[in-house]
C-alpha cells in the first residue's frame, strides 16, 4: 500500500494550522521572519520549516482571486534526492514516503541541489539537511500526518494513494465545471507517481511546479559515471600491473642489459 496527501488549494483558507502542527510534532524551532509585504509567512521553507502555505494571487474581472498552495516534499517514487545521496541517508519507507535520516546525513547538500522541486533545506550550523518525511513516525502508530490531522478545510487529506487519486479526479472535474479550465491533477504519473497529489486550479507553472518534472539529466549522467570510473580505474591498475610483471628483471643497455 502507498499512502499520500491530497492537496486541494481551492479548499485552503490559509489558516496555516498545518505549519504550526508540523513544527509542533517535529519539534522544529520557530524562526524570525521578515515582512515582505504579503501575508505569506514564512517566506521560504527552511531547515526548520517542512511545509508552508504559499499565497498566489491572480487578478480577475471580479477582483483578486487568491490561491493558497501547500509547499512541501512531494515524496516522489523516483526520487532524485534518494538517488544522489552518497550515504543512503534518504530512503523510501514502506508506505512510499521519502525519509531523510539525519543520523546518517553528512551535509553534502547533493539532495538540496538536485531536487526537481527545490525542497530539502540545509543547515550550516548542524551540517545536516532536512525535509518533510510524511510523519512516518505517526503513520506507523496509526495516526495521520500532523498537518492533515489539523486541517479544518479538507485541503490536506491523508489516505491511501489510489483513493486520493479517485477523489482528486472528482475534484478536478468539479473545478472544471466551475470554470477553472486549466484545472488538473498533478502527481498521478509524474516521477513514477508522487506521494503528494495536487488538485490544481491553474497550470502547474502558476504554482512554481515544473509542468513535467524529471530526474535531472545531469543526475543520470553523474550516476552512470560511477561504475565507469570503477572500471576505468580498475583496468588501469590491472594494465600497469601487467606491464610491471612482463618487464620484471629487464635491464637497459647501459645498466648491463642486452639490446
Amino acid at each position, binding site marked *: 500500500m502507498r499512502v499520500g496527501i491530497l492537496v486541494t488549494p481551492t479548499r485552503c483558507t490559509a489558516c496555516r494550522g498545518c505549519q504550526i502542527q508540523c513544527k509542533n510534532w517535529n519539534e522544529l524551532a520557530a524562526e524570525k521572519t521578515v515582512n515582505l509585504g504579503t501575508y505569506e509567512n514564512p517566506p521560504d521553507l527552511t531547515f526548520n520549516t517542512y511545509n508552508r502555505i504559499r499565497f498566489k494571487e491572480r487578478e480577475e474581472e471580479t477582483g483578486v482571486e487568491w490561491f493558497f498552495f501547500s509547499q512541501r516534499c512531494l515524496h516522489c517514487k523516483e526520487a532524485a534526492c534518494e538517488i544522489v545521496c552518497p550515504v543512503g541517508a534518504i530512503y523510501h519507507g514502506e508506505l512510499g514516503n521519502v525519509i531523510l535520516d539525519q543520523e546518517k546525513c553528512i551535509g553534502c547538500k547533493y539532495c538540496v*541541489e538536485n531536487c526537481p522541486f527545490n525542497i530539502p533545506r540545509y543547515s550550516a550550523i548542524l551540517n545536516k539537511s532536512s525535509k518533510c518525511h510524511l510523519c512516518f513516525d505517526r503513520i506507523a502508530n496509526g495516526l495521520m500526518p500532523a498537518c492533515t490531522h489539523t486541517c479544518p478545510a479538507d485541503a490536506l487529506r491523508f489516505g491511501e494513494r489510489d483513493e486520493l487519486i479517485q477523489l482528486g479526479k472528482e475534484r478536478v472535474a468539479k473545478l472544471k465545471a466551475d470554470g477553472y479550465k486549466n484545472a488538473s491533477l498533478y502527481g498521478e504519473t509524474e516521477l513514477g507517481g508522487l506521494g503528494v497529489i495536487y488538485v490544481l486550479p491553474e497550470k502547474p507553472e502558476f504554482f512554481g511546479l515544473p509542468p513535467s518534472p524529471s530526474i535531472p539529466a545531469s543526475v543520470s549522467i*553523474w550516476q552512470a559515471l560511477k561504475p565507469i*570510473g570503477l572500471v576505468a*580505474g580498475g583496468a588501469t591498475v590491472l594494465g600497469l600491473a601487467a606491464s610491471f610483471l612482463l618487464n*620484471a628483471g629487464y635491464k637497459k643497455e647501459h645498466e648491463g642489459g642486452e639490446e
Partner: protein
Amino acid sequence: MEWIQRRSAVARFIHFIHFLATLTLFYTGLALYHPIFKFLADWVGGFGVTRVAHRAAAIFFIGIPLLAIIFNWRGFVEFMREIFAPWDEDDKEFMRRFIPYLFNAKTKMPPQKKIKSGQRVADWFILGSALLIALSGLVMWLNVYFPKPFVRWMYPIHELSMIVLGVFLLGHAYLGSGLFQPYRGMYRVMFGNGKVTEAEARYHWQKWAEEVKRK
C-alpha cells in the same frame, strides 16, 4: 658518473606539496565517490573529517599552481610552449610505440626532446582535467552563489574529470616512481636531488641530453 640537473629545488618542492594535496583529495574524494570506498572515511574518523580535509587540500591544489604561475610566469610560458610544441616524426613514432613499450621494455623508442611526446599528451589531459575539477569543485563549494541547474552539472563534470585525472595520474605515478623497469631511479627527478645520470638522460631524452651537453 656524470649527473645532469633536470628539476630545480623549487620545482621539486612545489611538486611535493601538490602531490600531498592531490593524494589527500583523491583519498577523501573517493570515500564519497562510491559506497565501496566508505572504509576510507571510517579509517580517518568519518565523512566529517574527509569533507573538511577535501576542502583544505583543495586550497593547496588550486593555490600552489596559481602562486607558481604568478611568481614564475616565464617558467609557465616556457612549459606551455614545450607541451604544445609542434610534433616531429620522432614524437609521432614515440606515441605509436608507447603502448607496446609498456608491455615490452625492449621496444626501441625514438629520441625525444626535454618532454617526451607521450608525457606532453598526458600533460594536456592532466592539466585539462585538473582545471575542470578545480572549477567544478569551486562551484560546488560556493554553491549558494550559483543557480541550481548550473550547480547540478558540476557533479558529473567533477567526477568525469576525476576519472580522467585518476587514470593519467596512475600512469604518471607508475612511470615516475620507476616501478616501470626502464624508468628505475626516475623518482630522483621529483622526489630526490632532481638529477639524472647522463646515461639515463640519453636513454629517455636523447635530444635534450645532447642539447645540454652542447651548452
